[in-house]
């Protein structure tokens, strides 16, 4: 069982370019999440999806969009990248919709640099 895979592992991107970070889970978890990790700030929630077909905004959603066409995939798109979006991005999933006691499981991350 792979768990959560993310692609690419790392990427250098010119400002203004469009970029999609991919996330796939094979655990059939209902809920999925995107976080960014920045030094001194910990992890901050960008967007989430409680179940396929639904998405919601986290605490730092501006400049990002997501979709959840099926249970397994949860891509994160930067429509027009800016240098402040340089970060490490983590995808996560948890078993139940709204299950506040559920553990979130994390992917290996994507390191994105926007120049």
């Amino acid at each position, binding site marked *: 069982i792979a768990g959560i895979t993310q692609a690419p592992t790392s990427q250098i991107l010119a400002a203004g370019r469009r970029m999609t970070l991919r996330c796939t889970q094979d655990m059939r978890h209902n809920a999925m999440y995107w*976080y960014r990790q920045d030094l001194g700030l910990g*992890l901050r929630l960008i967007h989430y999806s409680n179940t396929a077909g639904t998405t919601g905004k*986290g605490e730092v959603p501006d400049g990002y969009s997501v979709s959840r066409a099926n249970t397994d995939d949860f891509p994160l798109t930067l429509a027009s990248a800016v240098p402040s979006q340089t970060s490490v991005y*983590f995808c996560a999933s948890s078993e139940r919709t709204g299950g506040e006691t559920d*553990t979130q499981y994390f992917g*290996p991350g994507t390191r994105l640099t926007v120049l």
Partner: protein
Amino acid sequence: AQSVAQPEDQVNVAEGNPLTVKCTYSVSGNPYLFWYVQYPNRGLQFLLKYITGDNLVKGSYGFEAEFNKSQTSFHLKKPSALVSDSALYFCAVRARTGTASKLTFGTGTRLQVTL
């Protein structure tokens, strides 16, 4: 609003000595508390969680954490540190907000275990 504080950016411990990584939280209602560990260039790995019941929670790799409601703390502990425990540790708290279950992370504490 919910929040987590990890007051120490770094904790240094000699191998074989006990270690403590501190975490305090603020949340309305019942807190659900989590500890994660992150090794270099890796995603977050779940260590343990407190949901209800016994205040002392045991987790992976010999770690444990004690929930203290009066002090709103959830400190991570290990009786005897190993060099391989050196990593970045994150405390997180969850509470329900609307239909989402938001997990709020602390800023992380780097644990350095030396021989």
